[in-house]
């Protein structure tokens, strides 16, 4: 990854809440633990030595339980909270040292924020609320209203311009909140538990909407959540925070297959891992069971129940039942008739196919070449592990 791909990079950021952050900072650099610092000075550590980067155009989810510092983290990006030490770069420019005016500019142009509590202004209409950020930036009424209307149309609220927040349902209010953030056309969208206050159906609808908007506009989104289902559904990459520290960063698959510690593991406890694991993550290739069909009868090792035949290009031709046709000498094979399973097919779609097949499911890459097989016992083992 080159630095041009990074839109935000965070380097050794600490945030200490309390009256004497310097004392606490000194203790931390001397190697004291967070607990010691709290007991000796009464200073609470919000973020502890965070270093990571957010890539351009991705949905980056910061996950953690309450008190893990995730909401503090997101407020450090637009400096609603000032970091105690460390630096944050936006597009290579350090935003931690910006003067007031430049900081206002960053907030107005680069970052849009959506809040858990919606935080709409009750005395403004939906249109005025949406145009709020533009109004603050001093954009003329005509232009800001037309841009606000566009943003409202994007979130499916066209026609509601003249309603007031109290007349709308929670889901609609949060759409206004989203439209308000989008109207500025910010480089980065910061979403602080934006959907946590919504009921499950509306929440999943809004998640879908967000995924759609992101796919259309390729905007970088930093999303805070405490809900693993949500994080996995919308996040390209997830950072897990515990007690102010970033414990692990990775794609959902990486986190579920190689959790860094028990904290990460507990997050996925009870999570239906068949929904994020792909067939390719579990499939294994046993070279003994695959033979090329080049005119002569293929030879399989005795004892193997099934063999797979491929052509010169690696394409799967069919399956040989070795037990009935014998270990060698037969060119007779059954064609694999089932709906093909590819490496990126979600595991939960493979379950039914595997159940109906007598032999392990062959897994293909997108060109149709055999990359591995998936037996029922492999599937069961994988699912029981998580």
């Amino acid at each position, binding site marked *: 990854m080159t630095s041009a791909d990074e839109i935000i990079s965070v380097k050794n950021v600490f945030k200490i809440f309390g009256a004497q952050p310097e004392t606490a900072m000194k203790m931390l650099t001397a190697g004291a633990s967070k607990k010691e610092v709290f007991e000796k000075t009464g200073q609470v550590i919000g973020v502890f030595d965070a270093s990571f980067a957010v890539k351009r155009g991705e949905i980056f989810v910061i996950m953690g339980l309450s008190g893990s510092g995730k909401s503090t983290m997101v407020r450090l990006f*637009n400096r*609603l909270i000032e970091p105690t030490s460390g630096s944050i770069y936006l597009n290579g420019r350090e935003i931690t040292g910006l003067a007031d005016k430049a900081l*206002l*500019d*960053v*907030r*107005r142009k680069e*970052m*849009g*924020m959506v*809040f858990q*509590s919606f*935080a*709409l*202004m*009750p*005395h*403004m*209409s939906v249109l005025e609320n949406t145009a*709020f*950020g533009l*109004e*603050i*930036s001093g954009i003329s009424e005509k232009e800001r209203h037309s841009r606000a209307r566009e943003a409202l149309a994007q979130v499916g609220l066209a026609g509601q311009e*003249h*309603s*007031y927040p109290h*007349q709308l349902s929670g889901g609609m209010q949060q759409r206004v909140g989203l439209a*308000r953030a989008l109207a*500025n056309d910010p480089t980065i969208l*910061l979403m602080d538990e934006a959907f946590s206050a919504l009921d499950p159906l509306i929440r999943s609808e809004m998640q879908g909407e967000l995924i759609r908007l992101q796919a259309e506009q390729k905007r970088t989104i930093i999303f805070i959540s405490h809900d693993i289902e949500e994080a996995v559904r919308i996040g390209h990459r997830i950072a897990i925070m515990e007690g102010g520290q970033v414990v692990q960063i990775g794609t959902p698959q990486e986190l579920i297959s190689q959790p860094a510690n028990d904290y990460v593991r507990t997050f996925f406890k009870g999570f239906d891992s068949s929904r994020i694991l792909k067939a390719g993550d579990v499939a294994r290739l046993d070279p003994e069971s695959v033979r090329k069909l080049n005119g002569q009868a293929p030879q399989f090792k005795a004892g193997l129940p099934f063999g797979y035949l491929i052509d010169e290009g690696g394409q799967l031709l069919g399956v040989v039942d070795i037990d009935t046709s014998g270990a060698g000498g037969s060119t007779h094979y059954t064609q694999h008739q089932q709906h093909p399973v590819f490496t990126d097919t979600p595991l939960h779609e493979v379950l039914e196919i595997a159940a109906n097949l007598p032999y392990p499911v062959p897994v293909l890459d997108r060109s149709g070449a055999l990359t591995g097989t998936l037996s029922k016992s492999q599937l069961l083992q994988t699912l029981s592990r998580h």
Partner: protein
Amino acid sequence: MSEFSFLDPFQVVTIPLGDWVESTLNFLVHNFRDVFRAIRWPIDQVLNGVEYTLQSIPPSIGIILSSLLGWQLAGKRMALLCFVTLTLLGLIGVWSESMTTLALVLTSVFFCALLGIPLGILCARSDNLERILRPVLDAMQTLPAFVYLVPVVMLFGIGNVPGILVTIVFALPPLVRLTNLGIRQVPEDKIEAARAFGCTPRQMLTRVQLPLATPTIMAGLNQTLMLSLSMVVIASMISVGGLGQMVLRGIGRLDMGLATVGGTGLVLLAIFLDRLTQAMGARTGADPSLRWYHTGPVGFVLRLFGAKQPVGRSKTA
């Protein structure tokens, strides 16, 4: 002079507070006469303007205009209330005195708003200022009016202007307190959202804090108005005219009739002003989609001329 005793040290050790105040006052009167003249001037101008206007409107026209204002602000019941209270004021024969009192009250409320709202805003911004100002406000509210009536007379003389000054002293605190409270009570998430979108402190104040604090500030204005009304009676002791003067004269001459008429006039005026300002406060908290020009006589006239109704409206106010 008696010997110093530990059991009763205050026979000897005393602070001559009274003497200090007197000499300070004498000093001020002798050296700063021009400053006090200068303070009188703006109050005099505003008061004369308001009183001249109110006195020159004929009673019938005044009643009709107030009723229309009541209708505009809070609907037809309010209009009826305005009509009844003002008509009663005329019927008991105190119209002119009421207008003088109204002018005094409006002038002092005007100056209270001029001083109190900015002061409240500053208080909301600075905890230190609030800490300093709070005992001062307490003193202003609890100090008996008679205590500062005398120095005010020495510095400003007698008449309506010093009357307004003592009224301001008494009526200012609730406005400062409630403006401060209103701004401090603006929900944190709204403030944070405004900051996140790049509000300057000034934009924060005018676009977020003041609009959201308006109902509370209006409640403060209502309190200030009521306190002014009660103070103009006491201020009549330093020769302030109007209804208070009637009450004072009635008491002085043991003329119960005159005192009762003056008192009734004050109560009627109080009901009128209180309901009207409360209605103004309630408006700011009401459905913001309903603009003021959609209701009341203005809305009525606009509808007559075929103006469009706002969408989604269920009933006329």
